[in-house]
């Protein structure tokens, strides 16, 4: 899952790594998570800046620390300790991301409207099961255009943006982060699977549940 997500992070079309959207201050702040369903170990980073592959930094949080989540300046400090090269902010920003940001500033649109207009939040993710029956998931995102500085969405929050457990399965989510958080969407899907739903039916039920409870939209 890390390999797939790294490729998506490199692809300028997607809102993750290179191609990330800009926050209200015009900066890129990225979030990512990775989880190993065998041990329930997870690593996540939020509000990290100037690196090309947040998902790999999340992997290092999982492998090299006793923690599960590191955010903000601390995440960048950790990246530096590991010798992960800094990339200049401009290298992560595409013309489209810049345009969206400028448009937002022109019209001062609210985040909700931005969401409805489907501007800029194509979080990326991957789930996999290996030949030994282990599952894993990974999610990476640049967030929502014109989000507040320091805003964290569902992606790096375990049980919200992603969850993996060998005893049930693996999930990665995308959509309106705040709604996904309100219903802890990834965990809702795995609980449905635990109670006997197929993966597809658990996914369907959970998306309907999110719509009913908090009027949220997205995908798993």
């Amino acid at each position, binding site marked *: 899952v890390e390999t797939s997500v790294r490729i998506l992070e490199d692809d300028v079309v997607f809102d993750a790594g290179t191609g990330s959207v800009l926050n209200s201050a015009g900066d890129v702040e990225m979030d990512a998570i990775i989880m190993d369903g065998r041990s329930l170990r997870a690593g996540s980073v939020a509000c990290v800046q100037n690196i090309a592959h947040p998902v790999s930094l999340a992997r290092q949080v999982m492998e090299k620390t006793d923690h599960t*989540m590191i955010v903000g300046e601390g995440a960048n400090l950790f990246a530096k300790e590991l010798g992960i090269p800094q990339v200049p902010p401009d290298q992560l920003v595409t013309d489209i991301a810049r345009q969206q940001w400028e448009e937002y500033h022109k019209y001062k649109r609210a985040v909700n409207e931005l969401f409805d207009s489907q501007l800029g939040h194509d979080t990326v993710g991957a789930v996999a099961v290996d030949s030994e029956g282990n599952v894993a998931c990974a999610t990476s995102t640049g967030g929502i255009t014109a*989000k507040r500085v*320091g805003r964290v969405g569902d992606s790096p929050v375990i049980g919200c943006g992603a969850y993996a457990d060998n005893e049930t399965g693996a999930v990665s989510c995308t959509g309106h982060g705040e709604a996904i958080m309100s219903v802890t969407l990834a965990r809702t899907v795995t609980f449905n699977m635990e109670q006997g739903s197929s993966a597809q039916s658990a996914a369907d039920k959970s998306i309907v549940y999110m719509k009913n409870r908090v009027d949220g939209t997205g995908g798993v």
Partner: protein
Amino acid sequence: MASSHPEVEPVLIVHGGAGPIVKISQTRVDSKLKGVKDAGKAGYKVLCEGGSALDAVQAAVMVMEENPEFNAGRGSRPTALGDVEMDAMIMDGSSLQVGSVACVKNIHHPIELARMVMDKTDHCMLVGVGANLFARQMGFPLVPTEELVREEHRKDAREHTKYTDAVTELLNPGKDDSHDTVGAVALDAQGNVAFATSTGGIRSQLPGRVGDSPLVGCGGYADNDIGAVTCTGHGESFMKCTIPTRILNKMEQGVSVADATDEALTYMKRRVNGTGGCIVIGRDGQTAVKCTDNRMMPWAIFQGDKVKFGINQGEQFEGTCISQV
């Protein structure tokens, strides 16, 4: 207040953190018990005056943030760099709205800031520099780090510059009460539930480390259809198992509050060898206070005209409820 729900009896539970079982003086025990009772009293007063569960849990947690006895607000533990980074979260079970902050520095009441994230932004969570920027916009006064840290904890931090050492030691019984996150859950007369939690983290943690407390579904969850939970203990373990959502999921399937709580803590021990405690309220007013058997946790339940409280395993005292409410 008009409501379609029949009136229910309000309940409020607070805890002052689950630490390893250590010998502490009777003075400290009394001080911790007084701390949770004072906090609970403040929250229960809100409920008895017809206030919401949401306002009640916030009021209770603010009292504990003010009390240097607890690891939240004043009394927080310094990170490996000597800073104080605090996390807090609040959730309204009627709307499933959430507000949370993580790695925020130099403010007295992180829980108040979390509430503002919920009420005044389109977001659920703000972290780090962005959280402090928001605090400034909301007019929070900056508090010097020294005001948030007790001298003995500063000394601790100097002795345990490596988080690994700190964790190994802390999670093995025998030394210091190290990560006493605080929290509250409440059910109001209209049948709404809410929870709030606040923490100063584990001492000597890496800068930027976020535990379970500010993560929805990990540090707590509240849903009017089921109930409310908040947790304390080894944050990383609660995160891996998303314990609050597990407890509520079992309750939704008809398991009692007490059994669902026991099941989740046993599960966490089995899957990730994690320990800690939870406080839980069901929508019907059932309560559970439980921590794994290698820990002690000061707690208090306010219900009817009674307050129940305790700190050691299996211990329960009872008193009559405060006359002023």
